């Protein structure tokens, strides 16, 4: 498959997965909450293209897209959201707390940033050239522990790429009400170079990410990648306070899948769409049929 087709497919897998979550949530098959990645697919796909075997990824509450782009199993993620035994964490973590290979997520905003920094530092102490990619939103940047971590990352040259997915909203709060100064400025204050890009084009994001990751890996220093992006769906489910027109405007101008579509011929797009639809529906059906976990007594 060409790069263009692979990226298209990867974004489509995330989109269809998330649409299925929102679509099926009201039927009661999922337990708990969700935060979908619809509109931001190009970020995960463009960035995680460039990671290698030993690299680690730390994600946040909006982690499904990151996980799928990392190579995570779709049925296992559906099952985790259903709380099934076959869920990637056996139903312990749910939507926001997942782990597979070197992928981790935690739903407490900002909390993972020092942990990811320590993982990067461990690589440097061991003398390998593995890196860490950690995702955060603009809203998380209100958490002070992030700045403690950035200070240490710069002091100790931790090979970490800090990715800010700036959709300019945190739950319902627009960035203007929550952020003073600029996002790149906050990194630069610690001597961590920040590459900023306003794009929903997976190719542009991939190019920026490849530069930033090369700096981290070859230079052995922390870097930031700040992406202006757009959240199309509600924060969680059905809790959008934005106007319908505003959301429609985002769809019209910045859908990563639409932007990328012109690089593929229509037949191939259709084939990929059919293939992905089939994969998602099979993964969903399989997870649905999976068993509930055994009840743990005195789990330690």
């Amino acid at each position, binding site marked *: 498959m060409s790069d263009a087709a692979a990226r298209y497919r990867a974004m489509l897998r995330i989109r269809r997965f998330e649409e299925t979550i929102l679509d099926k949530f009201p039927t009661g098959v999922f337990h708990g909450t969700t935060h979908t990645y619809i509109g931001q697919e190009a970020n995960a796909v463009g960035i995680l293209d460039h990671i290698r075997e030993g690299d*680690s990824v730390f994600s946040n509450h909006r982690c499904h897209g990151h996980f799928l782009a990392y190579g995570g199993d779709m049925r296992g993620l559906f099952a985790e959201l259903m709380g099934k035994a076959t869920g*990637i*964490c*056996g139903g*312990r*973590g749910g939507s926001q*707390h*997942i*782990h597979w290979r070197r992928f*981790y997520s*935690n739903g*407490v905003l900002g*909390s*993972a*940033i*020092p*942990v*990811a*920094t*320590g*993982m*990067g*530092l*461990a*690589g440097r*102490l*061991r003398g390998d050239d593995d890196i860490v990619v950690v995702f955060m939103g603009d809203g998380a940047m209100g958490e*002070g*522990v992030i700045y*403690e*971590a950035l*200070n*240490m990352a710069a*002091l*100790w040259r931790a090979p970490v790429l800090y990715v800010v997915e700036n959709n300019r909203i945190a739950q319902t709060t627009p960035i203007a009400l929550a952020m003073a100064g600029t996002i790149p400025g906050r990194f630069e204050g610690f001597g961590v170079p920040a590459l900023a890009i306003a794009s929903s084009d997976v190719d542009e994001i991939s190019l920026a990410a490849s530069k930033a990751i090369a700096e981290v890996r070859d230079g052995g220093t922390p870097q930031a990648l700040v992406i202006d992006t757009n959240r199309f769906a509600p924060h969680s489910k059905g809790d959008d306070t934005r106007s319908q027109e505003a959301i429609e405007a985002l769809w019209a101008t910045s859908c990563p899948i639409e932007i990328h579509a012109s690089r593929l011929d229509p037949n191939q797009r259709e084939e990929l769409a059919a293939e992905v639809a089939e994969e998602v529906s099979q993964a969903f059906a399989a997870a649905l049929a999976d068993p509930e976990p055994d009840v743990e007594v*005195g*789990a*330690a």
Partner: protein
Amino acid sequence: MSTVLESLNAGLHGAMEANESVYILGEDVLDPYGGAFKVTRGLSTAYPDRVITTPVSEAGFVGVATGLALSGLRPVVEIMFGDFVTLITDQVINGLSKYGWMYGGALEIPLVIRTPMGGRRGYGPTHSQTLEKLFLGVPGLRVLAPSAFTDPGGLLRAAIDDPGPVLFVENKLQYQRRLDDPAFSALESRLQVQEGYATAATVGVAGAPRPQLTIAAYGDMAERAAEAQLKMAYELEIFSELVVLEQLDPLGPSGDLPRALADSLRQTGCLLTVEEGTHTHGWGAEVVARAVETSAQKLGIARVAAFDSPVPASRVLEASVLPDVDVIVGAAQKLVAALDG
């Protein structure tokens, strides 16, 4: 002749020598200073690449240490004053104590957080507290306290070998206690496993009659309880058994009392818990609850702890708030009298 401090320091040296994965992180831990209370003294000279002095960022460097632990290293973190554990609560409760379990149960988080609690040095309300009770009952976290009656450095080394996270609670005044204190030469102690690798010591006055009272304590208060035990035996003819527990939490398997404590209670039917933290919702409350839940007999019960007050700086005021030998003796006397009466 060695002290608790020397034993802990030797434990760290031994751990670093034995295992190249052991790293030390904390504020001002480098030589010649060697940490605010000198527990890390000499380490940065012996292992300059593995002792990392940190910015004043407790939450941040505990998080960084968690990342090191998730990557297979064995960090030992020092929080300069126990009072500052409030700053690391998110990293401990929503992070390192859960990561192993919530990610499916296969991950190891070999991380030790050491910190000195305690007052009696006039440091005032924010540098004198005993706050470990805030971290009791956190699933996935082991809370330990060394004792001069056991092996402080050995316990620390075992904690460093533990595949899971440990909060290791030291005490400022305890550091200078001698492991073979001649003041305690009249006491004899029996050691047994408390839980996991933690030890319970059962301490009594050699040759004394059958004990009437069981005292449960840990850390520096265990040593104060031993002083009280001697005083009671010689001056009041109240004979007691002191059970010193190294592990504050989990206390014992699945709701049980530690065996040493249960055995002693069966003999005495009378329990006094002793701790330096504030009284309400303290460690002693859990010990007492378990004792009542698991004992066939009716028990006499009392708790000694600090008054529910901030710790004042003034010597007189501080002494009025924190429990000392005389408070323990007084509480024991009252408890025994009530049972006799």
